[in-house]
């Protein structure tokens, strides 16, 4: 079996001439373009075959990512599957692709979620289906490009291009206020990304290259004030993307108005790009400023967790509630990243992966309910478990995972983050744990109000899960429980990255003047 897979990998490698990552990125994009171009022919036969083609393309991409994961060497800390070609000579920008463990897990997460999205949208989206799934396929390719770029301007190109299909998905297939939500999402994120572009342009000019690895060796030695300005620009971009609390107002609108698949992708993958950005750019390239702002970021994350949980408690729209819970969970991610120790970063990466699965699944569940009852108001639901026991069981798994119950992956991530934060400051740890309780409060209340109590009369005709819905939800549930029981499957590979980050930070701390630290951090490690 092993030999068979190895042979298959070699076959693929030779097929694409060693440019596996480029193929991984551009194959979905080209397929999406072709299918969009062909979709103008309205013949039904063509449409059905186009749908199958798109689904097959997405599955092929998922398969390709699993092959990459198999061939990946988990012992090495550097980038693998590297492709480097000179792109723009004058500024020394190269078309540079490469993945390490962090990118690998996020790429696999995004591939899984996009394939499931395409699969579920083929049935649930009735209007202009082929265009919809082609846009999701394009999104799949672009997101892989974001996670695989090792050149800062190439990263920016993919980072922005991701906005375009999402804008169309929200704007054409969205809810009542779709135009407002689509514009708000696009313009807000565009502003953040342009701040990133300014910082990136400065770094490209002053360091003379766009390569992240070379930037990592040059930019940390700039003086602290310049680093802080650059860090601030990057912060604006990623804080809007994650989103962190002062910049979070686009998320509830975008989630509520987007179609199901759009929300799944937005919550499951696009938010992780912000966390990935912090891990890939702010920490390694600007470590001095990261240490300087670490306390600021942790406090902001605590505010995010507590504030978002409390706001979620009083929502009457299910999707909005889950959107605010996303903000709360991403607060854990940023807290973990800026704990700047090994447990924190491990926890942050693990939480990113698990939160992608959890909120993706939650949005799928809501989509299933919406398809049957045509409303997202909590007051319209009651006693759904009577009619849909299977959904109730799966929804329970996802709710428990969102609460961070042990045996689910949500617990592992948050526990690691709490370990990391407690090492720094007991007060921060205490406040962050408060978020876990608040998280439990609104999720359990939501579940009780929707699933339990007596069945409402208008819900007596709804049917339990269809076959395709079972196929969409089950793998995620299995993965969540599996990761909860055996998190070592992922965390043993994260060790290398987080150790690298931590060592990098330690070196900067030892070489740097004292004014880099806030006085609060007693330095207990």
């Amino acid at each position, binding site marked *: 079996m092993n030999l068979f897979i190895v042979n298959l990998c070699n076959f693929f490698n030779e097929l694409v001439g060693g440019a596996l990552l480029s193929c991984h990125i551009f194959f979905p994009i080209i397929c999406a373009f072709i299918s969009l171009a062909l979709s103008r022919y309205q013949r039904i036969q063509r449409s059905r075959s186009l749908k199958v083609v798109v689904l097959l393309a997405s599955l092929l991409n998922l398969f390709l990512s699993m092959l990459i994961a198999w061939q990946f060497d988990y012992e090495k800390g550097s980038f693998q599957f590297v492709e480097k070609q000179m792109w723009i000579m004058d500024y020394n920008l190269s078309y540079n692709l490469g993945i390490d463990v962090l990118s690998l897990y996020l790429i696999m997460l995004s591939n899984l979620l996009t394939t499931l999205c395409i699969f579920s949208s083929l049935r649930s989206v009735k209007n202009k289906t082929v265009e919809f799934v082609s846009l999701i396929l394009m999104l799949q390719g672009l997101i892989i490009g974001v996670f695989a770029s090792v050149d800062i301007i190439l990263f920016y*190109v993919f980072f922005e291009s991701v906005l375009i299909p999402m804008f169309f998905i929200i704007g054409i297939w969205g809810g009542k206020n779709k135009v407002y939500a689509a514009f708000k999402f696009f313009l807000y994120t565009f502003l953040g990304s342009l701040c990133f572009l*300014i910082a990136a342009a400065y770094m490209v000019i002053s360091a003379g290259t766009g390569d992240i690895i070379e930037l990592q060796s040059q930019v940390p030695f700039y003086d602290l004030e310049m680093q802080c300005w650059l860090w601030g620009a990057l912060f604006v971009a990623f804080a809007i993307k994650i989103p962190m609390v002062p910049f979070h107002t686009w998320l509830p609108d975008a989630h509520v108005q987007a179609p199901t698949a759009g929300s799944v992708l937005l919550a499951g993958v696009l938010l992780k790009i912000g966390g990935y950005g912090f891990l890939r750019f702010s920490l390694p390239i600007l470590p001095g400023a990261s240490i300087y702002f670490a306390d600021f970021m942790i406090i902001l994350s605590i505010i995010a967790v507590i504030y978002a949980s409390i706001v979620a408690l009083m929502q009457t729209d299910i999707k909005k509630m889950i959107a605010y819970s996303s903000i709360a969970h991403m607060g854990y991610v940023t807290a973990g990243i800026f704990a700047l120790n090994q447990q924190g970063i491990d926890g942050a990466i693990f939480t990113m992966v698990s939160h992608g699965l959890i909120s993706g699944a939650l949005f799928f569940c809501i989509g299933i309910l919406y398809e049957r009852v045509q409303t997202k108001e909590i007051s319209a639901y009651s006693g759904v478990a009577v009619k849909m026991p299977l959904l109730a069981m799966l929804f329970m798994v996802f709710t428990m995972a969102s609460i961070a119950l042990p045996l689910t992956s949500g617990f592992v991530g948050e526990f690691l983050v709490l370990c990391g934060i407690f090492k720094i400051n007991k007060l921060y740890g205490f406040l962050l744990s408060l978020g876990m309780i608040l998280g439990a409060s609104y999720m359990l209340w939501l579940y009780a109000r929707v699933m339990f109590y007596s069945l409402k009369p208008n819900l007596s005709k709804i049917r339990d899960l269809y076959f395709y819905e079972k196929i969409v939800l089950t793998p995620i549930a299995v993965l969540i429980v599996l990761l909860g029981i055996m998190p070592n499957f992922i965390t043993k590979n994260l060790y290398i990255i987080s150790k690298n980050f931590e060592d990098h930070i330690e070196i900067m701390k030892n070489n740097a003047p004292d004014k880099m630290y806030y006085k609060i951090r007693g330095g207990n490690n």
Partner: protein
Amino acid sequence: MLAFFISWLTTFSCGVENLAPEIVISLFSLVALLFCCYIKFFRENICYFIAIICVVAVSLLCNRIGSVPGSIGNVMVFNDFTNVFKIILLSSFIFNILHISIVKKTQENYPFEIPILLSFSIVGMMFAIDSNDFLLLYLGLELMSLPLYVAVAYGKDPKNNEAGLKFFILGALSSALYLFGVSMIYGFTQSTHFSIVGDYYVDLVNAIEVDLKIPIAFLIALVLITVSLFFKISAAPFHMWTPDVYQGSSTLVTMFLASSSKIAAVVILMNVLCIAFVDLIDQWKQITMLCAVLSLLVGSLGGLFQKNIKRLLSYSAINHIGFILIAISMDTFYGVASGIIYIVFYVMVNLLIFSCILNLEQNKNYHNNMFDLAGLAGSHKILSFAIMIGMLSMAGIPPFAGFFAKFYVITSIMQQELYHLAIFVVATSVVSCYYYLRIIKVIYFDPINYELDRNKIPVLIKLMLLFVVVFNLGYALIADQMFLIIEQFIHSLISD
């Protein structure tokens, strides 16, 4: 036959053979003006004849690209820089003029004079690009503008007359300011030649080593000339004519204004500022940057409330001119190179959008109102895709060409360490992004307002649209090549 003609010109031994393209086009236009009055076949197909002649002129220019720079008594200079820009000018003119076939579908008796007037205007533009002397530049500017005044005013609608009158009065005013400035310069330097004017400052520096004071009148002359050229490129605060003229003229002429006239005006500005006043850069840098900042502000804020697409595009033109002015005012090599890339991209995108608008104007129901476009994606897939690509490119969103143009400008700003300017540029980019997205929203998101008939787009136009769309989409692949090509000919501008 052409070679015979050129060799005959060479016998004059004053350099006239370099003017062969201009001579060819102007002779042809004069002859055509006569023939069209009598021969119906000529009248019907005038645009194809003009296009063929322009292709001939382009080939003449292409022949001369790698060779030694020529000149006519040093008052006209023909180097790589001017040749390449003349090629770009003529190519956009060919693209433009071939759209008459679409216009003729709705207006049977579209006058043949308009294309001929536009070709005279092109001759004037080419003259102005070549010239190395202020008075010859004036000749070119006038030859460029006067036919345009007439072309803009063509039409039965009162709006056309209004546009023509506004354009004429403001254009005449700018010409008057220009002449005033040139006459004052003549008073100081006894010559209107660029290099002699440029040497004047150097002589001043050499003569008075300490406590250099440039005569204030010289600076006033500089300001007057620059202001007059800013009128021509519609930089704020001299942009008032742009929305009305764009809206009022017929779309073919608007396309010409937006593409060819802008290229020529920007190149003339670059010639004047970078060759004649090159040592006074500290003086004109501030004016240019101020106008650039104002243009960005006016362009982004002004377009927010427009309902007419052509007015919206005029404000977006002002926005782009802001970027180009910023690029020109950076005195580094990369600054000017980014300006040139920007103008090339800008012209291509404008040709794309105006071509789509021209195609849409075949419908009786279409009145250039933005909400006429509602739900266009349902019925006109190619046009709506082309407009979408154009809008996303103009907004500066990767991976389209517009992003790279703006990226180069932003990096050249960062090279000069003008961080506040970079933040301002970014903020106005977001604001202008709103009205570009709004057009996409109207086309794709809104339900269909009323049926616009399916247009038949001629194959030639489809091919040209395809070329521009592919250029926009695939720019990321050729970004390096473009920079290399531009590097090659920009040396003639900087070193002269």
